[in-house]
């Protein structure tokens, strides 16, 4: 059992999402950084798709009422376990009665510090599965813990830890995080901006040449009006050559839609399934994790790529996960490593491992 002592700005139960129900208007939701949740789950011996907690902007306190194993991924917000530091991407044992605290400020104190953290717990957070997922749908009010964000005093049941997690006993170990390990475009960019690789969207050609230049060359800022539905950007106003009527059409996480204000919104996991605004671009799957961790008011640079580059970026992420599996295997984590390699690329199948 985990007791929520202080939830912070927004804490919710999330797994890898509720897939297969878009045609009913049900959004996929799930951990906005699926890679972070999967990493955390691997570190505690869970299947990639086990439910964990998504925490926003630190300032959070959780008490464990049983012995277990945890891993914090994403930003660590200066986390401590009964006063001792907890690093991101580490797997560590927890005794009954211990308290995990995330600080109010991010640890690095720089523009590159993050926004969200994910907590994985051995056995996963054991809330009922609804429509194939344990994720909280905050807008529709179902899934997760009572269909809502976590509140002070909530008690979250945990599933049975895997044999792996039990065998690790008191050992602690860690991983290189994805920002270090995945070779993206980050090396060449100014340190205060996060690069997102974007494919031109279906309505890209309707925008003016000046808008195209601004999209790829001008800096963009994430405004504080952002949430799990969308990251609102601020920058040069984008405009179409002429206003054409848009009919309702599918949108997916990563879609950059441009409302009449000209300030784009990048849709996130809880966004509606269809939209009526032109889609100037779509952030590639391999970069969605960076978007989920991009700090409010942080600077973004949008980099144009095509489908081939997007696929090779995805393969780089899969290679990283394979390295994670190998690293964990050499640390004595064999079952988890074998069974879960590549599960991220098949979120539909990931759920099948939940009964491990």
């Amino acid at each position, binding site marked *: 059992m985990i007791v929520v002592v202080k939830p912070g700005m927004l804490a919710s139960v999330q797994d890898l999402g509720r*897939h297969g129900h878009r045609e009913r*208007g*049900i959004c996929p939701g799930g951990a906005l950084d699926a890679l972070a949740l999967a990493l955390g789950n691997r570190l505690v011996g869970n299947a990639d798709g086990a439910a964990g907690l998504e925490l926003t902007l630190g300032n959070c306190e959780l008490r464990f009422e049983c012995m277990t194993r945890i891993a914090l991924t994403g930003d660590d917000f200066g986390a401590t376990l009964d006063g001792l530091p907890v690093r991101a991407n580490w797997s560590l044992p927890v005794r009954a009665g211990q308290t995990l605290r995330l600080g109010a400020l991010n640890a690095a104190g720089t523009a590159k510090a993050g926004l969200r953290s994910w907590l994985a717990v051995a056995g996963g957070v054991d809330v009922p599965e609804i429509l194939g997922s344990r994720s909280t749908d905050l*807008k529709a009010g179902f899934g997760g813990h009572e269909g809502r964000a976590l509140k002070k005093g909530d008690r979250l049941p945990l599933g049975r830890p895997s044999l792996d997690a039990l065998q690790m006993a008191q050992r602690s170990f860690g991983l290189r995080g994805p920002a270090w390990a995945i070779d993206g475009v980050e090396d060449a960019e100014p340190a205060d901006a996060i690069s997102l690789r974007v494919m031109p969207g279906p309505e890209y050609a309707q925008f003016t040449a000046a808008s195209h230049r601004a999209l790829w060359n001008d800096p963009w800022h994430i405004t504080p009006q952002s949430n799990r539905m969308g990251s609102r950007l601020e920058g040069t106003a984008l405009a179409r050559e002429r206003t054409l009527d848009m009919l309702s*059409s599918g949108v997916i996480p990563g879609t950059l839609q441009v409302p009449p204000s000209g300030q784009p919104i990048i849709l996130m996991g809880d966004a509606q*399934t*269809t939209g009526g605004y032109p889609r100037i671009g779509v952030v590639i799957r391999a970069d969605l994790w960076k978007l989920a961790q991009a700090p409010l008011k942080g600077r973004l640079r949008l980099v144009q790529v095509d489908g081939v580059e997007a696929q090779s970026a995805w393969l780089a992420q899969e290679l990283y996960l394979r390295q994670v599996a190998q690293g964990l295997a050499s640390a004595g984590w064999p079952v988890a490593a074998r069974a879960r390699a590549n599960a991220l690329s098949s979120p539909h199948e990931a759920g099948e491992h939940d009964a491990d």
Partner: protein
Amino acid sequence: MKLRLHALGDAALLCELPPPATLAHQQKIWALAAEARQWRGVREVLPGMNNLTLVFDPAAIEQAELEMQVLTAWPQLAGAAIEGRDILIPVAYGGDDGPDLGDVAAHTGLTPDEVVRRHTGATYVVYLLGFLPGFGFLGGLPPELATPRRAEPRTAVPARSVGIGGEQTGVYPLVSPGGWQLIGRTPLALFDPLAAEPTLLRPGDRVRFVAESVRT
């Protein structure tokens, strides 16, 4: 009817028809959705208005191959393959359930009773579900009932409110911000995540509204 294909990121393909949106177009979109659902590598089908988004797994099928499959299947599809159901939605019109019935009457130049008579007299077709879980985009609003959205959207429209927004009508499944003119409310749940069929409506269904009561 020439289909335009466009990538929507690296794991989704948009298939769209040129405007206008017609029921005949939409029936072919549903037929394509039903077909594509069977294909290897296609994870989700999402009909829009005059378009279809296929969410696919690039590890199982390349986009170029999927495009080829769509273009091969398209000319062979029969329009009316989908079998819609007839759904009756009881509505308490006006009063607290439909606070904007008077405004719609004023805008259209009809009496509130006449607005209700015409709203219940039509048969609507569910073109797609989107926006919210279980929210149906309905075609078939009598043109004389079209009323612009409210200048000031409400921050919280009550769940199960029946509204008119421009040339569309529909039912809000959940509490939600919204700008439509609210003319009534139904006791039916449009969305129940615990039910075997979580949404009352499905694309292709025919909907009729039935007046349970009218308060003016």
